[in-house]
């Protein structure tokens, strides 16, 4: 029997001018603020957002969400224009159902070191 709520892992990349490090806390605050502005708390609790891995030097990371709210997460990332007065562009590379597969895609598409789990 297929589960109704399944997880999805979104591999993303932050494009910006210069190599300014964006911290994990400021990134999640910005994503939550945009998500709540667009969709409110009625969808916020169902999103299941979690930052699994993130490399602040390169701007690459993996976000976890539910299968029901995957497109909402991608639109939320599309509407983010700046974080702490830095112009940014979120580029979602791939989505997958397991962490193992997304880490494989990270090694294939984003040639950067994978940070350890926190």
């Amino acid at each position: 029997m297929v589960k109704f709520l399944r997880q999805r892992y979104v591999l993303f990349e932050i494009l910006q001018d210069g190599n300014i490090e964006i911290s994990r806390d400021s990134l999640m605050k910005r994503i939550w603020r945009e998500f709540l502005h667009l969709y409110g708390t009625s969808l916020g609790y169902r999103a299941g957002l979690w930052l699994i891995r993130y490399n602040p030097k390169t701007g690459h990371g993996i976000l976890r969400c539910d299968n029901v709210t995957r497109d909402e997460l991608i639109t939320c990332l599309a509407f983010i224009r700046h974080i702490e007065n830095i112009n940014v562009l979120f580029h979602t590379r791939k989505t997958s159902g397991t962490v193992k597969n997304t880490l494989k895609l990270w090694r294939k598409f984003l040639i950067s070191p994978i940070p350890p789990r926190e």
Partner: protein
Amino acid sequence: MFIFGWIFWNGKTEDIVLASEFLKKVGYQAALIAFTSQKEYEIFSKNPDLYGKPELKFPISIKMISTCKGNRVAIPLFPLIILKENTIHQFAQNLNHISDLPLLRAATVNDQETAENLAKDTRIDILIAENDKENQIFTKGVVSLARQSGNTLAHSLSSAITASKYQQSKIFRNLFRLFNSIKLFRQPNIIFTEFHYPENKYIIRGPRELIAILKTIFKIPEKWGKEMLSNHWEKLILLQIKRVYDLFIEPGVEIVDIKNIDKEKI
């Protein structure tokens, strides 16, 4: 194949080369360049670093797009001219000068009257609405006239992305109404986020993000969203390739093969 519309021409080849690399990173496989005059197009077409004439092979298909790449750019670029005039008389004068050139023709709309007259004109390929005000000009009458003459409608999402939080809901509402009216007519339409490189390159959004925006906010199914970003653009680009070789006769008629070609003429 996802196609980006459009980069504004600023006369610098290095800026356009860097813009094409940026677009390839974001996920596009081809792009359009917008000109405002004939001189700018002539400078672009004579530059082999930016533009390559497509190789003629029958049957004409989308695979020819990959042969149009310049020497230094990362993705193939296609020319487009945008007309911005105040009166219908000025539009007619400019169209007479441009109608022989092998490029796509677009026009921005200011009034209801000019929109209705331009929608009837078969010389124009694309009708553009950049702002919220121009989106309100596309009424049901204009959409049906555009469908009869074979024009496509272009809508910009950059105003929705750059607007403040208080204006976004108004812009979303107008676009939602427009898309619902276009659905009934099954009118071909396209989505674009134009930019000037390098001034505002962070207004661009990738194709996956635009499809997600159309699905979640405007309730447009994913299949139609992909058509707005790929299929309708491909038809326009094939039209431009046919104009290069004078192969376009009228809509519904297609040349399958030519025998005894004089290679010197091509």
